[in-house]
């Protein structure tokens, strides 16, 4: 039983171990984060000044498209799956994931999907240039030939996500330690369980919509082509029926991570555990009935505008419950500000700002002004960067000592935090202003009046990018060496993962642990 990992490359190719697969997911995501980051810096370099300087407009459009696709499907989603692989079995006292072989398969198809997607950059006609939302007919009638590779890459990513989600649900439902009822599960497990259900419902819809594109392009159907009786607006409905739950797929696990970290460093149990669970479920449910708020300007009837506006605003209620609970957890706590806590507090503050701009966008009549401007870009980067990326970063700092047995460099971690925090705000806050002043998204050149805000944004973007290089260095240095971590790592953290030694042995919980809940 107590055998270690195999040697050599086959350890990684054939592994069914949740920790190995989790590490591979995280490294893959890290690589994609840098790739997507380079694309973002090309965008920001071009936008540093008005006029066309560095890249031609078509390549600029390829950069915005690839940046979005790589960050969403390559960086954020695999990072959460990686954290789920590492932490869910350890948090529920299971020896491994329920379907270890499928786990290997769902990881290993991902590099192929992204190799295929990235290869389109070198193809004749260039990479997809129609934006990450790939609206028809831009992505059908007017698409470069490489769109077919994009479609198959999305199919593979979808298959990977669905398999990952099935595995996570099967693990959580069947493999919890005796005594761990659903309402005693750690919140990271809860949020991932709900996320996995969202994935199972909407990733097939994404696969469906790209399949329809494939048929329209190659097999003469007219799903989205008005000339043959189709309707391009149908594309937007189907895409956003996937797309809106998708944005919660990228944030719910983040809620779970900060709900683990804040109690540890506030030295108080999480405030309002059950309301957190219900709020997560409520957000997931509402995510299915708000999709058309992305489409206020397509000509919805007044009743539709009102319904989608109110339903969207309703989401602020469970989200507000969550923010309240995090703040209440910190209230009168004996707080310390280690790196994971800094990222988590920044998460709470900045995600709330992103939520507020989301509420502004939800107001249908106001959205007619904001639609497709940099205000939207500011909004979704405020929820995704300090939301998804900061929580993943916080989770990595929080659990890294458990994974590799060494403490990371705290000073460097804090410097990373402050550079990232300042860089992020300098990059994205001015976009609110340029957006409200009317600067449209996805353009390589712009009116002189937006020049100052754009120059500030570009400076911030390079600062943010540099901070991430420091993160990479810190992670590698921690894995290679550093102060040994204790089993608990932090002061009385809650959860089964802290009852195993650091680094966590290759096999943990071969025997189900005794589980005692504190709440």
């Amino acid at each position: 039983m107590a055998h270690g990992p195999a040697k050599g490359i086959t350890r990684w190719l054939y592994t069914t171990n949740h920790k190995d697969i989790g590490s591979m997911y995280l490294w893959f995501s890290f690589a994609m984060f840098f790739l997507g980051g380079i694309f973002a810096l090309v965008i920001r370099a071009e936008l540093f000044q008005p006029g066309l300087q560095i890249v031609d407009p078509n390549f600029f459009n390829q950069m915005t498209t690839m940046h979005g696709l790589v960050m969403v499907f390559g960086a954020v989603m695999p990072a959460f799956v990686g954290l789920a692989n590492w932490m869910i079995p350890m948090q529920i006292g299971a020896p491994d994931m329920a379907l270890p072989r499928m786990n290997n398969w769902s990881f290993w198809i991902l590099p192929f999907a992204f190799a295929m997607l990235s290869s389109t950059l070198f193809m004749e006609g260039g990479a997809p240039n129609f934006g990450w939302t790939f609206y028809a007919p831009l992505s059908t009638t007017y698409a470069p030939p490489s769109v077919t590779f994009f479609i198959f890459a999305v199919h593979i990513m979808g298959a990977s996500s669905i398999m990952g989600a099935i595995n996570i649900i099967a693990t959580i439902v069947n493999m919890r330690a005796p005594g761990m009822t659903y309402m005693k599960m750690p919140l990271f497990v809860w949020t991932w369980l709900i996320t996995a259900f969202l994935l199972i419902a909407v990733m097939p819809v994404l696969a469906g919509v790209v399949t329809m594109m494939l048929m329209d392009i190659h097999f003469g159907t007219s799903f989205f082509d008005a000339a043959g009786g189709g309707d391009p607006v149908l594309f937007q409905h189907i895409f956003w029926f996937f797309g809106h739950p998708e944005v919660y797929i990228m944030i719910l696990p983040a809620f779970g991570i900060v709900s683990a970290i804040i109690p540890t460093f506030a030295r108080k149990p999480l405030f309002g555990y059950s309301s957190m669970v219900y709020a997560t479920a409520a957000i997931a449910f509402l995510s299915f009935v708000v999709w058309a708020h992305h489409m206020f300007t397509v000509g919805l009837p007044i009743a539709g505008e009102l319904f989608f506006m109110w339903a969207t605003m309703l989401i602020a209620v469970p989200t507000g419950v969550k923010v309240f609970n995090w703040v209440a957890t910190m209230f009168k706590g004996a707080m310390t500000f280690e790196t994971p806590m800094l990222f988590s507090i920044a998460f709470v503050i900045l995600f709330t700002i992103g939520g507020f701009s989301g509420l502004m966008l939800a107001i249908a009549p106001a959205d007619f002004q904001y639609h497709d401007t940099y205000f939207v870009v500011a909004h979704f980067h405020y929820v995704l960067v300090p939301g998804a990326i900061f929580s993943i970063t916080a989770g990595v700092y929080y659990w890294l000592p458990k994974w590799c047995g060494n403490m990371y460099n705290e000073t460097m971690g804090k410097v990373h935090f402050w550079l990232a925090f300042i860089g992020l705000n300098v990059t994205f806050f001015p976009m609110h202003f340029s957006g409200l002043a009317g600067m449209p998204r996805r353009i390589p050149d712009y009116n002189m009046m937006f020049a100052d805000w754009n120059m500030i944004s570009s400076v911030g973007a390079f600062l943010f990018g540099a901070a991430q290089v420091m993160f990479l260095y810190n992670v590698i240095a921690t894995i290679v060496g550093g102060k040994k971590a204790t089993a608990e790592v932090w002061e009385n953290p809650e959860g089964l993962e802290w009852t195993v030694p650091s680094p966590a042995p290759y096999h943990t919980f071969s025997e189900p642990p005794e589980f005692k809940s504190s709440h």
Partner: protein
Amino acid sequence: MKVLPEDPVKRLSVKLAITSFGFLLFALFVMPPLYVAFCEITGLNGKTGDKYEAVDAVVDTSREIKVQFVATNNEGMPWQFGPEVKTLIVHPGEQTRINYLAKNPTGNDMIGQAIPSLIPYKAASYFHKTECFCFNQQALLAGEEAVLPMFFIIDQDLPEHIKSITLSYTIFDVTDRFSREELLSMVDTGQ
């Protein structure tokens, strides 16, 4: 029925896989027809209905509705295409004819398809077409021109507040979708 495996993990996984496959089928085969049906009922995307069988009805001369006709060429469509008159004043219940004129100025035989769209959307289900060139594709040989008639009746039940209707046709080049024989047969039948 003992189709699902005994083992709880496998059992659940198979159920989840079936569910996800169900959502794929839902996206491919339910969402598009559902959308079309929804738009037909509500008239939301401005699409007008199929051929309408005229019923004997009283012409409501107390109301005058201004109908404006608009024509657009889809990108890359070289035909000259437009309505004979831009505006007509009609009474609800009255059958009216409007001609569109199309000319293929190119040296190639081509097929066009006109797609209607109507605003206000609320009027879409009250705008009946008894004959329309848009029900079929139009084939025009190189240099040929044609008069494309459309007969319509505005329903007497058109809501009171609607005083004017704009009907737009966009003409698409669909030559690639048909074979040469199909093109010639369209010309023969005068479609």
